[in-house]
């Protein structure tokens, strides 16, 4: 331990920040790391979106038009991996980095160096994953679920995909542990758990889910690797292993993963709706308990992804009923948001538009999920475009709309400038219209019997596929507005006040705009916490 006698006055430079590339590469500042996560997620969103457009271009009409079936399958698999692990999850981690310390009155994340590491693992993971496009045998084409024995038949891409998934998992776990420790130990004095903003609550539960399930994914993919290269038979039927068990293990990770992608969206919507309704959130505590209940239930419903592989009737009943049970806490949330808006002084700025669209469209995804939970019905829908429509309704107008809404809500706080709200409203309407043109017809296709993951199809499916592809291109190109609006805002946006939205509450709105490089070096006072905790 170094000891020395203090002789001179210490004057900290509280706005000191490093410059140049070192600021980013060696950053331990939660805002800089949050920005890097968000930029990375945006980049991956366009990479994954391009893959989706290749898929939709091929499906524009029956027959093989542009790509061979192997590449088509690679595109569907890679699109999923890139969007889940490269776009949605990093976007949430980026938002958590930006917002959690500001919202709990902490100077930074609890473990800033770990935070830097968890971000910088990601680009390498995705270099490895995207590098599979250029190796013999092409990119993984057996689906993002990596089911054996199909996944084991991949070429040189197989070990690259496994190591990429490991790296993504390490990055996620490091980020989750940092969030858990930050929220548990770094809250300002007086900010007890039931006064935390909903975004912090939902992230705390998300992080807990990540910590609980990531070893399962890591173990599962490691066992795939050892089955392929080291002669083990965990999932190889020829050696006494059980390939179906991989599906159980994978979905034990995979279903909580779905909630990992959607719970923070609930948090964001719970922040935006009260702000633009100019009312406190209805039923704050019930929202917290509903989130926790959803988190718990997410561990006991995994087998609804695999009703058709065969399981005892009791198992089918249990997983069906447990899945349906999730609609109870989810319904609590939906009704609470509606109650918050009831008799509120509503205004419809872009964040609110995205939040309301989330409310409607996520509910559609929830209802189709309920349909899929019914075992005999699922036997019909399994592996059809109905499933594709369901999870895209949950993830695109669900997670993605909440992410975009969050960006439009907090952007003035981040950059200190107001963006072009008219253009953002245009962005919203284009997104809301095209997302439905893109995904709603897929319900019809699925109900009519079109299987997923096929590059060619019977002519009876041609019309709705054409509509869906038109929606895909419209949705994809309209998203270019988002970076344009952000760049325009950075260059020429009008200065934003500290409280950019008059109904916004929370500690982050007590900070000046843009939020200073070091926020809450000194804990916020009781009065500030009191003001901020008006949910």
């Amino acid at each position, binding site marked *: *331990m*170094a*000891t*020395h*006698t*203090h*002789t*001179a*006055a*210490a004057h900290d430079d*509280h706005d000191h920040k490093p410059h140049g590339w070192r600021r980013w590469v060696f950053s331990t500042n939660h805002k800089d790391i949050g920005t890097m996560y968000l930029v990375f997620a945006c980049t991956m969103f366009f990479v994954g979106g391009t893959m989706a457009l290749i898929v939709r271009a091929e499906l524009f009409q029956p027959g093989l038009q542009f790509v061979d079936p192997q590449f088509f399958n690679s595109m569907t698999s890679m699109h999923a991996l890139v969007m889940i692990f490269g776009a949605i999850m990093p976007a949430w981690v980026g938002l958590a980095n930006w917002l959690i310390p500001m919202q709990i009155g902490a100077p930074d994340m*609890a*473990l800033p160096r*770990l935070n830097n590491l968890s971000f910088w693992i990601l680009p390498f993971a995705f270099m490895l994953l995207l590098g599979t496009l250029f190796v013999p045998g092409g990119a993984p084409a057996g689906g993002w679920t990596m089911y054996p024995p199909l996944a084991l038949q991949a070429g040189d891409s197989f070990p690259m995909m496994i190591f990429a998934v490991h790296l993504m998992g390490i990055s996620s*776990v*490091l980020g989750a*542990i*940092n969030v*858990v*420790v*930050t929220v*548990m*130990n*770094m*809250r*300002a*004095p007086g*900010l007890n758990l039931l006064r935390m903003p909903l975004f912090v609550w939902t992230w705390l539960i998300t992080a*807990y889910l990540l*910590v*609980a*399930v*990531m*070893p*399962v994914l*890591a*173990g*599962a993919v*490691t*066992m795939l690797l*050892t089955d392929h290269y080291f002669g083990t038979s*965990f999932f190889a039927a020829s050696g006494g292993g059980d390939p179906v*068990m991989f599906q159980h*293990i994978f979905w*034990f990770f995979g279903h909580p993963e779905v909630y990992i992608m959607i719970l923070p969206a609930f948090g964001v919507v719970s922040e935006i709706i009260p702000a633009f309704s100019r009312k406190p959130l209805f039923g704050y505590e019930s929202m917290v308990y509903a989130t926790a209940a959803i988190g718990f239930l997410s561990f006991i419903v995994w087998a609804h992804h695999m009703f058709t592989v065969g399981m005892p009737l009791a198992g089918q009943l249990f997983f069906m009923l447990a899945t349906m049970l999730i609609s109870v806490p989810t319904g609590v949330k939906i009704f609470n948001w509606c109650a918050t808006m009831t008799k509120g002084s509503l205004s419809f700025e872009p964040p609110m538009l995205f939040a309301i669209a989330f409310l409607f469209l996520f509910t559609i995804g929830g209802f189709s999920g309920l349909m899929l939970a019914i075992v005999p019905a699922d036997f019909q829908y399994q592996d059809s475009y109905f499933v594709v429509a369901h999870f895209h309704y949950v993830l695109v107008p669900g997670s993605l709309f909440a992410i975009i809404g969050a960006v439009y809500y907090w952007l003035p706080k981040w950059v200190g400038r107001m963006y072009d709200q008219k253009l953002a409203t245009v962005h919203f309407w284009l997104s809301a219209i095209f997302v439905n043109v893109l995904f709603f017809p897929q319900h019809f296709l699925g109900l009519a019997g079109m299987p997923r993951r096929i590059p060619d199809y019977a002519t009876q499916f041609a019309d709705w596929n054409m509509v869906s592809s038109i929606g895909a291109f419209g949705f994809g190109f309209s998203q270019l507005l988002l970076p344009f609006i952000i760049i325009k805002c950075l260059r020429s946006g009008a200065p934003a006040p500290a409280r950019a939205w008059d109904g916004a509450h929370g500690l982050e709105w007590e*900070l*000046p705009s843009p939020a*200073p490089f*070091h*926020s*809450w*070096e*000194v*804990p*916020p*006072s*009781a009065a500030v916490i009191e003001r901020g905790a008006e949910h």
Partner: protein
Amino acid sequence: MPAAARIAITPHCSLTPSGAWTFFLGTCGVSFGIAALLTLRGYWPILAFAVLEMLLLGWALYSSMQRRHRSETIVVTDDRVEIELRARNATVRAEFPRHWAQVKLRDDVSPLRPTRLTIESGGRSCEIGSFLTAQERQQLAVRLAPLIGGMAESPPLPSGQP
């Protein structure tokens, strides 16, 4: 033994050591419970990853709880004011003649740092209580002022101070 007043302050940690243990053991229970069930069915690599992850979580909690070891101790004796600022890897000490020292609470340093509390003498100063809230800092200033006194003052120290 000269009369002395001693004030020790530490940063706020929202997690107590017992709370940290409870949280850690609870999380271990969930993680190892899942891993144990799968290990019993032969899928032991999951347990290995669970152990690694829990070690990491334990280290992260331990590192964060180290904040508790940061402390500032102000000892006021008849003729001296001694300040010890203790961080994880370093200790800084400052010493002032009590007769010529004074407590200063400056306002409006910045919107995020509304006040700054220092003990000053002869052109030297030492900031204390930077991790306190503005109200706590003010309370500390109110408590220190009669102990240290103004410039060229040495008020009598209360006897029996801990």
